[in-house]
């Protein structure tokens, strides 16, 4: 690895962390504000910053609530229960948040970056090398996503088990069985996309979505696999343990489930990982089904509209547009997940498992079989 490669990697990692943590912070506000709008309340307008020595209060639609939350969590007493296992208790929050951040390493958040063209003064240093905008352009993309998301299950179970609290233990048991069930559904729905694009490399999958089908439709995954897209989103929300699938932390039954005994920033880490996971699931959905960083009819050189009309763009504009497109799509998906969260009531425990094994799983298998047969018929 040479110095330019290393510098680019560092920039990508800083960008990804900044994006994810910002999403985590902003989504706490979006959740409140969207819920208020949906239920016709004013909502989220109590926290403010007063400009010193004046009576001017900056409310800014309640944006400071996130800051108030963060300060409160950081300054609260870090109460520790008399846990069975101090090590497992301390490891829980880490295992919950680190894999969620790591998943983003294989998600492409932009097309190909040519830093020499972007900054002509550095062209010599980069020597004409180009970089895909993805922290780890690894061949085994989707497999890595599933490998890391499997580790979060262990985090939830360790946290619940080591808290020495029956509510936590029940939450951990629920988390374990729920995540295992829905991960299976998620894997099977993704297989359809893998069959269609013929690769598990997320970068290649997004590249293959940049063309058009039937002359005008963008060649996005959702056009080929609309059914799998719905199943994937359902399984994704379930993986994130949010309403209607929030049985592991159902506050009316289990206080707050597997992280009942965590306080201060440790509890904050669980909350933050949940909000970051909203963004990560959004990013995965966008990558697999919504064409990633592609706008319709756009490629690495500019727009080519269905009529044959072309609008060329400079490299800088293309990079900025691709980054913004990806962020915009992810934000839309996050907003949709919050819409679901404030619309549906919670499942009962037996309904939740029955839904996974007797409804989603057969549908996912049917989708896979139909896709395989259709592809085979096309090739034959």
């Amino acid at each position, binding site marked *: 690895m040479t110095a330019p490669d290393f510098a680019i990697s560092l920039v990508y990692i800083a960008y990804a962390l900044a994006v994810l943590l910002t999403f985590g912070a902003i989504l706490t506000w979006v959740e409140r504000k969207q819920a208020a709008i949906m239920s016709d309340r004013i909502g989220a307008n109590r926290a403010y910053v007063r400009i010193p020595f004046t009576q001017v209060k900056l409310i800014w639609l309640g944006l400071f609530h996130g800051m108030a939350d963060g300060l409160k969590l950081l300054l609260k007493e870090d109460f520790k229960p008399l846990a069975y296992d101090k090590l497992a208790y301390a490891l829980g929050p880490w295992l919950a948040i680190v894999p969620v951040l790591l998943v983003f390493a294989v998600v492409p958040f932009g097309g190909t970056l040519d830093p020499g063209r972007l900054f002509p003064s550095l062209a010599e240093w980069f020597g004409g090398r180009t970089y895909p905008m993805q922290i780890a352009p*690894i061949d085994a993309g989707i497999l890595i996503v*599933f490998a890391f998301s*499997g580790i979060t299950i262990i985090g939830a179970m360790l946290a619940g088990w080591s808290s020495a609290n029956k509510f936590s233990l029940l939450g951990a048991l629920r988390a374990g069985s729920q995540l295992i069930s829905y991960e299976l559904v998620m894997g099977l729905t993704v297989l359809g996309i893998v069959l269609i694009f013929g*690769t598990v490399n997320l970068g290649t999958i997004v590249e293959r979505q940049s063309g058009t089908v039937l002359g005008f439709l963008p060649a996005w995954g959702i056009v080929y696999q609309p059914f799998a897209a719905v199943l994937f989103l359902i399984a994704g929300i379930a993986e994130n343990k949010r309403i209607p699938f929030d049985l592991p932390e159902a506050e009316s039954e289990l206080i707050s489930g597997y992280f009942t005994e965590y306080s201060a920033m440790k509890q904050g880490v669980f909350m933050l990982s949940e909000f970051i996971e909203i963004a990560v699931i959004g990013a995965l959905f966008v990558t697999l089904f919504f064409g990633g960083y592609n706008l319709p009819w756009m490629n690495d050189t500019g727009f080519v509209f269905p009529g044959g009309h072309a609008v060329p763009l400079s490299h800088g504009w293309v990079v900025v547009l691709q980054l913004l497109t990806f962020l915009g799509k992810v934000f839309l998906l996050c907003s949709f997940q919050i819409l679901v969260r404030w619309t549906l009531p919670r499942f009962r425990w037996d309904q939740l498992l029955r839904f996974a094994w007797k409804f989603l799983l057969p549908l996912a298998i049917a989708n896979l079989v139909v896709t395989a047969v259709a592809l085979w018929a096309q090739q034959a």
Partner: protein
Amino acid sequence: MTIDQLLVYFFGACALLGGVLMLVARHPMRVALALISCMLSLAGIYAMLGVHVVAVFQVLIYVGAVMVFMVYVIMLLDVRDPSFVRRYSRMLLPGVVLGALLAGALGISAIRLGAPVIQPGAGAAPSYLVQPFSVEFLREYWLHFELTSVLLVAAVVAAIAIIRSGRRSDG
């Protein structure tokens, strides 16, 4: 020494430490955690050698599937079970002897082999990418793979037999 080699040694040390802790730790959950860290370090070694597919399957299958179920079961155990107090079973001595023999054999073969086969940090070799790997796997090694499942069935039967005999002696 490049950073890649350094990372290989680091992950190797972590894997060894995890393995030793797994043998020494008393509580099943600690044992499971040690095993998880050992497997993650092994995955790190594979990734540093450029065999990403093997690294991913190491995490996906061993950590994401096997260890998740183990942790799930350990969660349901009674943490005050008296059997957690004893550190080693009667098989300590034969185990140590066999372990030393295995380590010796591996060491000797490593010395005889000489130079390392894969250089760390060389990037993924083309034959280790997902597609060639899976084609090769299903063409050449499908029989070995299926035979492993027979082995697993035998292990399940053995486990049931052990539980049965244990229950009978309990009366």
